């Protein structure tokens, strides 16, 4: 049989569990609003652009009825931004393929988001969109990458695009980086 002290402890278990659950629920709440600290469209002039400056343009892109300020990247490209990362920072972006190429029997686009601390490159997210073959890809895809690991450091945020099909050069590779921001929560 349980001892008296054990019985007392047992009676407190529901209360303790309720407190823990409450704390957990509070921890799950998105209580802080996001505050942008770097707009990568505004910072485009300072970014390293590969293969050339002309591979990129800035414009408003409307996908699925939602218009966003965006960077458009044609074919295989790489954008490299220096960012000094504060605590609780995330990189957020909406990716898509330009609607004007959806009906071309070209290839989709592979989006790669990476971070380099100067010594080590890490791919943080990779998504392939193929709007010609997948109707579900004819929309914005929201991505969010935690930069918490790099808080306090100056890092390179590297945005890559690659054609996913076998014949690069066809129409169908216009990647869209919509409102790319580094935000703090």
């Amino acid at each position, binding site marked *: 049989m*349980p*001892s008296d002290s*054990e019985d007392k*402890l*047992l009676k407190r*278990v529901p209360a303790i569990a309720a407190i823990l659950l409450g704390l957990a629920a509070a921890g799950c709440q998105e209580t802080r609003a996001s505050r942008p600290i770097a707009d990568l469209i505004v910072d485009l002039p*300072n*970014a*390293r652009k590969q293969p050339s400056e002309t591979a990129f343009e800035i414009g408003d892109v409307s996908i699925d009825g939602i218009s966003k300020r965006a960077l458009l990247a044609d074919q295989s490209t790489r954008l490299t931004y*220096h960012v*000094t990362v504060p605590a609780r920072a995330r990189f957020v972006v909406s990716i898509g393929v330009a609607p004007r190429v959806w009906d071309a029997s070209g290839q989709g686009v592979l989006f790669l988001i990476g971070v*380099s*601390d*100067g*010594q*080590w*490159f*890490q791919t*943080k997210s990779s998504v392939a969109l193929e709007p010609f073959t997948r109707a579900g890809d004819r929309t914005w895809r929201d991505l969010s990458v*935690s930069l*918490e*690991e*790099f*808080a*306090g*450091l*100056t*890092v*390179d945020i590297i945005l890559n695009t690659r054609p996913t099909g076998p014949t690069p050069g066809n129409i169908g590779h216009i990647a869209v980086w919509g409102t790319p921001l580094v935000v703090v929560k």
Partner: protein
Amino acid sequence: MNAAMLRRRTGFTVAAILVAVVGVVLVYYGQVDTGLYYDDYHFVRPLRSLELRRLWFGSWDPTGVESPFFRPLTASLFALRFWLFGLNTQAMHAVSMAGHVACAVMVGWLLRREDTISSVALLGTWLYAIHPVFPYAQASWLTNQMHLMESVIVLATLMTWQSVRDRHIVWWICLLPLAVAAFLIKEDAVMLLPVVVALTIARMFLLRPERQRGWWLALVAAPLAVAALIAFRQQRLGQLGGYAVPDFQQAQTNFWKGIDAAVLLWPTRTPWQGVASVIAIVTVLSALFAGRRGVSRGIAASAVSLIVVLAFALPALRYEIDYPLVTWQGVASGAAVGILAIGLGTAIATANRTALFVMSAGLVVALGFDLPFALVSKREQYHLLGLGAVLLLSGAGEALASTSASNGHVRIAVLALAVAAPFALLARSQAADFRPCATPVLDVDPAAASWWVVPVEVKGWLARKPEMCRDGGAPGRVSDLPLVAWGLYGEERASDGESYRWTSDTAVVLIRWDIRSLTLAVRRPGASASTPVNVDVRGAAVQTIRLDSDQWQTVTLPLADGLLTRLRASHRIDIRVTPWFVPAVLDPKSPDLRRLGVQLRLKSE
């Protein structure tokens, strides 16, 4: 606890310590001060506060040398180890030996608390101390001190489980922080709670305790806790990490490789493994036939068990490894596992529930902790499988002791002595792989020298090492280098023709213990009275150098002895520069993300 009980406990602990120390000395004497090996070279370094924070949000190795794993506690303890010992490998290996002894003693207590006879508990201590799986897995390789820490926590968890399993359900919560700590050391500890649940169920069936309580909560809570740990890891690391995910066939091969290597001692690379196996099986067979009861049933049950156990070894026959000794070693290693089969048969024949439970506990530990190794299986990670093997062998010993006409101590002593030579010789040969001039060490030294984070002074020492090792020479210790620095970049040349190195925002310099002073010359181009730069130099005392021009400033630091100097076999100087700068921030077109502090010249006397 009365005085007699306290005396018995103290006596057993002292005996276990003695047994463990003798075993460890037998295996590791002359092999302790074995220097650094491979991954050690980048783990033995100071971690900046930023890096210590990063560990909790990403990979355990912010340098990117290692594959990404979420092991924040391991990396933090490595940082603490460096703070305590610097590059003093002798002290670090001494800690490993002490830790291995502690684990062996805990194994003895674990067995003792399962009501095995005291000699069987000491046999467990002995087997753990000399088992050949541990030199690679936790005792000889400094990087694998993480396994040593994990072993301590796993053993502590199992002992805690022994304490709480018959108490109120609330007491089981004590297991949770231990399981979390083990998981933060290494991810294979995710199996700790499932293993505890499996042990609880095995105990219910085999020992039928009167007050088995809480098992149902453990059954429900363990999967939840495991899922939470995995989800936390995924959230922090953002990936599975580690190496590539194998296909099913490879996963099977990986799984059995661990059991084969740690429990069945198969496949093998050295003849001592075969010898160990043969002697073990002959000893056990002899002991069995010397028994006076349960022999005929024991033989029958043992034969069946042997077939079952050898069936476990059959997958190993698929290995396409061309060893000269493969045939004999295959037979011998299969026979080595026979010790378990004979013990199991004897336990069944004599209905020895204690022995059956200890053996099943060993099996649960070995199989449970081997499960994550389906992803990748390497002999340097079999420490918990080794624990399972020791429990299995100890359970077999308990069964054999119970068939003795007397109290069984003599039979256990014979068994312990019989396995001593082959196990210890095999373990010694494994430990010898970590000698500074051993071929495996020299083979990977060039890889270690290629890592950016390894200080240039250590790289130079590594480059000279093959020459020093030639003709049986000794390369000395890395702590004998006059000066080793972290946080300094490559050498550049100033306009006056003299060389200097940029510091990062922080730097750490270790200076050999017998050096009495260090002279630093520092300069920061662009420093002025309106934009001064402060350089804090922390040794025995703190000194601040204020740079208000771009001229070199020199300061000489006296180096004093202290406790930490002795532990490190070095003086440690910490340098902190404020403000520092990042070239890529000043010039967005610059690719240079380094933090730069001051230009530095060092001279020790």
